[in-house]
């Protein structure tokens, strides 16, 4: 195959991944909703450290959604929140205490995208900074 054609094909992953970044960044700018969660913390070398979190609809404030109804079907049964290893232990305690909420960018017809995690009402980075 022509070298120039091959060289241009090298750009394929860059184009696809840049497109994916743009799409996700667009989807992250919808209206924000907060969903209460429960979960645990599995670890995997390939993905780094993350927490598996399940939406807890009984503890979620459904007034933030249209018609005051939680759109359970629009959300997955589990979500992944990536953290650092040293954060996992304390965060697990907080999740077990029921003071953790996931913030989603949500618009009906689109897949909800996690934009932040709230611990005791603080955003994740604020929480991390207070832990130092």
């Amino acid at each position, binding site marked *: 195959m022509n070298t120039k054609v*091959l060289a241009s094909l090298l750009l394929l992953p860059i184009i696809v991944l840049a497109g994916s*970044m743009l799409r996700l960044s667009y989807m992250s700018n919808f209206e924000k909703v907060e969903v209460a969660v429960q979960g645990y913390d599995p670890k*995997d*070398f*390939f993905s*780094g450290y993350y927490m598996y979190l399940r939406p807890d609809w009984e503890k979620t404030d459904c007034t933030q959604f249209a018609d005051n109804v939680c759109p359970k079907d629009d959300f997955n049964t589990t979500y992944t929140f*990536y953290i650092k290893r040293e954060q996992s232990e304390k965060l697990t305690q907080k999740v077990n205490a029921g003071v953790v909420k996931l913030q989603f960018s949500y618009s009906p017809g689109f897949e909800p*995208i996690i934009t932040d995690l709230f611990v005791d009402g603080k955003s994740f*980075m604020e929480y991390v900074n207070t832990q130092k």
Partner: protein
Amino acid sequence: MVTKKQLKAAQVEQKSGEKVESAAQTASTRENYWMMVLLYFASFLVGLGIVAEVAANWQAIPNAVKLGGALVAMLINSGAVWWTMKTDKPILKQVFACIYAFLIMGVIGLIGQIYHLHSHMANACLLWSLISWPLILIAPRLLWLWTPLFFFGCRYMPHVMDDLVIEEVLGSADASQQYRFNNTILNFLRGYLAFVFILIYELWVNFDKKQDKTVINPLRFYSGMFLLNMYSFVPYFARALPQMDAQLQMPTFFRFVLPYVITAGIVYFLNNKTKRKSFMPLFLIGVIIQQAYVSLSKEYSSHSWWSWQEINMMLPIVFCLLMAIYAKCHKMPRLFKLSVMAIIFWFVGTFENHIFDLLPSLIICAVICLLAYRLRSRRWFNTGVILAVIRILCYYGDVENLEHLGLYLIGAGILIIATILLLMKYSKVLWEKKDEH
């Protein structure tokens, strides 16, 4: 006037000249082949380092900077591949292509991490294999990395079907017991599906005599790859085994080895009967890759019934030995040497990370180098040197922190690549001196 004799003599001279040239080319290609195997290993380390760096989750860096940096790194890397293509540097081209393949994987992971995407790793592998296929056209050896990951991506389907079948058909009544029972049966079926594919393929080859020979080799390759990926179901199959522990009093090692050995036996028997080479080496190499994946994946290490050390230590050596025996019996010198090299690497590499264990392994490397020098085997001399470098790296490789591990792996990979390139360039002087003596 030129006589017939003179003409013949000239032709003979020309032919012998061509032969010498082609022999020299073959020798250099062979040497490059071994070096290439090691270069791929080093590129693999660099790539793994990139993935580890991504996994380390650098929260302090803004997301836009991370994503922008990832795109810039990809552009630079693709530029490097293009430059090696343009300036005709085949070795560096493969190194950069391999690193690029891992970088794409790392960036997919990074996007998943930044947007907290909840998806099975198989989906990421499928996306990776779809967008990175041009690299195979540039560096065909990457097919060894691409094909398993592609099939790993595809294999997610049966898992999804599994859940659907159970939910739709069984409903909620007695679901937990029925789930376990059906899961066991399905996993059994998956495990044995590989046997069905082997038999279909073997029967087809045996009975269809009019086959186009040019089709058979690639077909074997893909069949071998397909089979080995079918065997990636074995961990799933193994998940069902704790329930059978009471009935099957068998050590973990045997339980894992047995399906592979039975499959290998069937393939060997059928091939031996028809006196032809098969995809057995691919199958065995695949099993080793598969086991390396299983060993690295912590998902399986959390099970109490998993005999961690047993699997980690024994499986690679068993399959390397099997591969060496197979290669020896079927007169495949290159594969035999590759297997022996893998056994030596395993032997030296699994020494404990202790200074007193480092010394004997370095002595073994020195002995390999000295013997190779006396026997004029450049290939083994180079192996000894690189083995010593890898052993020293293993000694310093006990890194707990993911950030440091990533940097360490990238550094180690670059060091090995540099050693190999230096060996390829400067070892000529050493061998010329030896020839003078």
